[in-house]
């Protein structure tokens, strides 16, 4: 394998390692939340350091590749998008920490119907699909992620309204509900991060930005 191809493989492998860590953090965060586990919450926060280290390492690798290899075409798109995907994954870790930090403050539960768990699962699914789309160069799966974001947004709105209703009817649950509002906001942001990653996967695969469709009138097409 050429040195440059090895470096591109290192970049992809690094992103996969980061994504694997982020997925693990999401799982632990869900568990910390449902089990009221301080230990798991602390584990999540300890893992965040690894993501930060990966971010620095991959940022440096991308800049080196741009400076030293003058990449073009698909290589250029991979590197340019990696510079955007890496911070998205790092932010997923930050949002997990934000949720995990509140794991012990949201009990006993005030929400019924499994809505909170469903939101966590759907968000988790979007992240997994976005990573799978990157690994498998799967444009269809990337589009599935982008379309799935609406469902998480709807859940967010639904839970948010329910929490407002609960706070108005029972002032004793205001503290827990306030923490839960921040929990769902962070889940919703993680889903946005998955969407952004999926958009970058589409750019890598198709060479066209999938962002802000309403602004797109690509003069190079």
């Amino acid at each position, binding site marked *: 394998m050429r040195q440059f191809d090895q470096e591109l493989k290192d970049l992809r492998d690094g992103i996969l390692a980061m994504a694997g860590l982020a997925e693990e953090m999401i799982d632990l965060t869900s568990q910390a939340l449902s089990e009221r586990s301080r230990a798991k919450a602390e584990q999540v926060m300890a893992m965040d350091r690894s993501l930060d280290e990966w971010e620095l390492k991959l940022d440096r690798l991308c800049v080196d590749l741009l400076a030293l290899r003058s990449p073009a075409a*698909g290589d250029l798109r991979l590197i340019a998008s990696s510079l955007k995907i890496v911070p998205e994954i790092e932010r997923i870790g930050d949002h997990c920490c*934000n949720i995990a930090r509140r794991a012990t403050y949201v009990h006993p539960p005030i929400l019924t119907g499994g809505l909170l768990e469903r939101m966590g699962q759907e968000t988790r699914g979007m992240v997994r699909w976005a990573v799978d789309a990157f690994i498998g160069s799967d444009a269809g799966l990337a589009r599935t992620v982008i379309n799935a974001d609406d469902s998480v947004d709807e859940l*967010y709105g639904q839970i*948010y309204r329910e929490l407002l209703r609960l706070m108005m009817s029972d002032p004793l649950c205001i503290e827990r509900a306030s923490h839960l509002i*921040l929990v769902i*906001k962070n889940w919703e942001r993680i889903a946005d991060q998955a969407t952004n990653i999926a958009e970058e996967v589409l750019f890598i695969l*198709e060479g066209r930005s999938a962002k802000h469709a309403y602004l797109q009138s690509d003069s190079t097409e």
Partner: protein
Amino acid sequence: MMNPGAIDMEIDDPRPVPEPTLLHASLDGAAKRVGIFSQPDLPLTDPSVLSAPTMLKVERLNLFYGEKQALDDINLQVARNSVTSFIGPSGCGKSTLLRCLNRMNDLIDDVRIQGRVMMGDTDIYAPGTDVIALRKRAGMVFQKSNPFPKSIFENVAYGLRIQGQGDRVVLEEAVERSLKGAGLWEEVKDRLKDSAQGLSGGQQQRLCIARALAVRPEIILMDEPCSALDPIATARVEELILELKREFTIVIVTHNMQQAARVSDHTAFFWMGKLIETGLTEKLFTNPGHRMTEDYITGRFG
């Protein structure tokens, strides 16, 4: 991202929300690019490009060196006041095609050419074409700078002198204009009588560009003009190319893909005598339409 009500709960996100930025300036710049290059069978042509004024039009061009076919059914257009790069591996036909554009291949024995090359309204391969007048319209700059063993002044004035121009005032005006056009005037204005061969490599190449400019061409054909220059001299020639395109149409053959990316509006990729892909340079270097182009520009060819 969404906001379910009047309250925006971004409390946990420490990063400031960025202000939207206006991109009009850069978008406008991209939209104003007008060069052209198109192959009718390929779906890569930018429609806006087809409406720009055409300087050169190559139609079904085939070229044979004896039995060997060096160009295979080339169709393309070059727009006025644009820079077009020809790229491809050695022997792909890019220099051969460049030399077809001012009939330099006529000087080679055993060459057979079919097809048509239109320069404006002129079919340059039509019988009775004045080849000298044609080469005046399409000047050429070569890989290795080739100043004549004469003074700087006489090198630039040479083309006009052989056209019969003997008026000293006219010649002086043309030499100054051309040296200024080639970005060399300030460096040589006090030593115009010195031998051109005392100039540095980069200066010699810009002198050759000045010599081409002196006869007021419409097109400048450049065959790897920077391959013998250091990075500083190369940067000066590249800057010059970008200035010259305001007045001239430029076609450049280069092995340096970064150079093609830096200076040209359009790029054409050739392989084994065939035009594989043409298009806007930024499109070809970020998202080429053909696998072979991708392999070539990413260094995975062959």
